[in-house]
């Protein structure tokens, strides 16, 4: 495809700061002589479909959006690539927390109990930890009750609110366990939602990767290469760039990889979120 527009990124507007971030990146790319623009979507599902339809050249994808884009592309005989990600996107884990004084000392003890999660489409606070528990033979909704906190559904759990609500339910004794991404446990401790030593980690998922810059195989590779090269050149030491990196939550861009999505692909299948063609099959999802 011949690019007749600026290299255009799709991103999901999960927070007003998203505008600040991509306006800042647009200005910075301009200083590097790289024509760049962005389009904001209200939902990762819409964004994935727009990407397949060719409305944008690259998408800033949640891990779940990566899975869907990859599947939609494959179903159309095309190929998606993960070209760049943040240093903070690699090797994450999710944890299942219980109260420190809880009698639950083993995953098996969750049988018959209630576990809180983030939004229905949160990879980190719902899909990955529930699939992790399922690997222990505990079927979510059957072996134990799931109390879901659906905050900003279709934004794939980017809004931290669902996880915070899940943890508040744990701390207040409404539920027996809560699923959160590892970093948010530290965040909730810092902001005082969790008192020191009030909770402990019952179990932790394996390592997985989070967001990625996704492109499809019909794009001009030289432009993608330049885009990635520029991202990788962004230095945290540069005072003009540092505020953008801080807003986006990274210190360094890294080249993309897809090895960190195996766990989520399996979770999506196990919990029936998308089918292998990327069609949404989960019930109760507003799409």
């Amino acid at each position, binding site marked *: 495809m011949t690019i007749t527009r600026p290299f255009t990124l799709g991103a999901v507007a999960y927070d007003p700061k998203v505008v600040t971030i991509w306006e800042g990146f647009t200005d910075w790319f301009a200083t590097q002589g790289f024509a760049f623009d962005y389009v904001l979507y209200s939902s990762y599902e819409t964004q994935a479909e727009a990407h397949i339809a060719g409305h944008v050249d690259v998408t800033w994808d949640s891990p779940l959006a990566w899975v869907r884009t990859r599947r939609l592309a494959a179903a159309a005989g095309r190929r998606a690539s993960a070209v760049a990600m943040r*240093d*903070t996107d*690699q*090797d*994450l*884990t999710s*944890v299942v927390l219980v109260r420190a004084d809880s009698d639950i000392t083993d995953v098996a003890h969750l049988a018959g109990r209630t576990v809180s999660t983030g939004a229905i489409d949160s990879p980190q606070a719902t899909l990955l930890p529930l699939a992790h528990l399922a690997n222990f033979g505990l079927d979510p909704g059957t072996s134990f009750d799931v109390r879901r906190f659906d905050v900003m559904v279709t934004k794939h759990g980017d809004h931290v609110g669902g996880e915070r609500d899940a943890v508040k339910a744990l701390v207040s004794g409404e539920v027996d366990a809560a699923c959160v991404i*590892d*970093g948010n*446990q*530290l965040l909730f*401790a810092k902001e005082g939602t*969790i008192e*020191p*030593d*009030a*909770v*402990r*980690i019952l179990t*932790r998922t394996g390592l997985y990767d989070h967001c990625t810059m996704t492109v499809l195989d019909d794009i001009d590779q030289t432009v993608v290469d330049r885009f990635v090269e520029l991202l990788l050149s962004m230095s*945290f*030491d540069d*005072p*003009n760039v*540092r*505020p953008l990196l801080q807003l986006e939550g990274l*210190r*360094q861009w890294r080249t993309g990889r897809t090895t960190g999505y195996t766990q989520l692909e399996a979770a999506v299948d196990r919990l029936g979120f998308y089918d292998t063609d990327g069609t949404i099959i989960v019930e109760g999802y507003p799409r």
Partner: protein
Amino acid sequence: VNRRRATVELGSLGLDGGGDILVKLALAEQQTGDEIGVRGTHPDLAGHLATWCRQHGHRWRTPAEGTTDGAIGIIERGPAVSARWVGAQHAGHADPTRAGAIDADPPGDWGLAARGATIEPGGPTPQFRIHRRDEVWTDRAAALYAQATAAQWDPTKAIDWNAPIDHNQRVEAAVVQVMTFLIENEEAALVVPARFLGQIHPHFREVQQFIAVTVADEARHIEVFTRRATMNGNDLALSTVGGRASLQTLLDEPDYAIASFLLSVMGEGTFVSLLSFLERHAPDPVTRQISYLTRNDEARHVAFSLAHLERHTRIEPDLRSRLARAVEQRHRALQNTSGLNDDVFDALVLLAAGDDTPEAVRSGWHHVQHLQHEMNDARAARLARLGFTTGEAEALSSLHTRNFM
């Protein structure tokens, strides 16, 4: 080769309770690439440290079997910790007496940062219109600020509001007229520095602090003059067009040096004479106490203004001719106004007379004539301190507004 430099001991403290602060302190003492060990017994410590290191750009590893000194893991310091210090500048020094403490022209992007802080590059560039040291600075600012804070007084306690008033209603009406006049003048003395206050680069902290207290002084003066005027149930008196026109020329002056000169050296200096007069001749103890307290404050404002203008005129001798032109210009602008309103002049005479008998008025008249000479002489003396010749000082003093401020 990375070297293990230190081990941080957390005991049972987890990263959910502040353990990361001790880790950060230990890392701050190392260089990028150096390693520290972490020891601790919190059950989730290793996992939390792995997460924390990822978020903060450090590398985390668990020690090989048999090589550990009890550390549950090793942190290799990443480069991001020191990024904010790359290219960071020292913004002078907190102590103004240190060599190089006060920058000649501090950059806008130092912004609101403390003088003496290390400034991470980047960020907003607020516009402080008054940013050149020679426009505002005086080495006396810190001492005058210290004097000002030590000399603050509480209007409720410092003045005996129950002291007896023995004079008659005509004299009381004169006191009310004088107070009404003082209030609007003190409003000018509040608004003019307050407008400049937000325009002065915060690097000149002591100047800013002095002006801030000056504004608070004037607020207190307005309070006590108002309270004195109305304490016997009287309404405030007349505010004239001429008086307000004279003060308007102060409000309209955009140049800090000229405004400070016109307001403080010429105006507030003249007010020191006036308040001193009121302290000596007011008919009641409350007015005398108020005049004493406010005069002390005003004298300090004059001292500050003289101090920075003495420095400024020494560095920039041309400033003197600008100041002289400003006085002449103000004189021309006010030529067609009535000057001090008759009501105020009469009130000063009656106030100093203390009674409405011919003999008392004769005495009051004499005191006011003397006051006008004294004001003129003191003004000329202040002008001489700024380097004006005796002839220039006398000429300029005579052009000062008849409205006193």
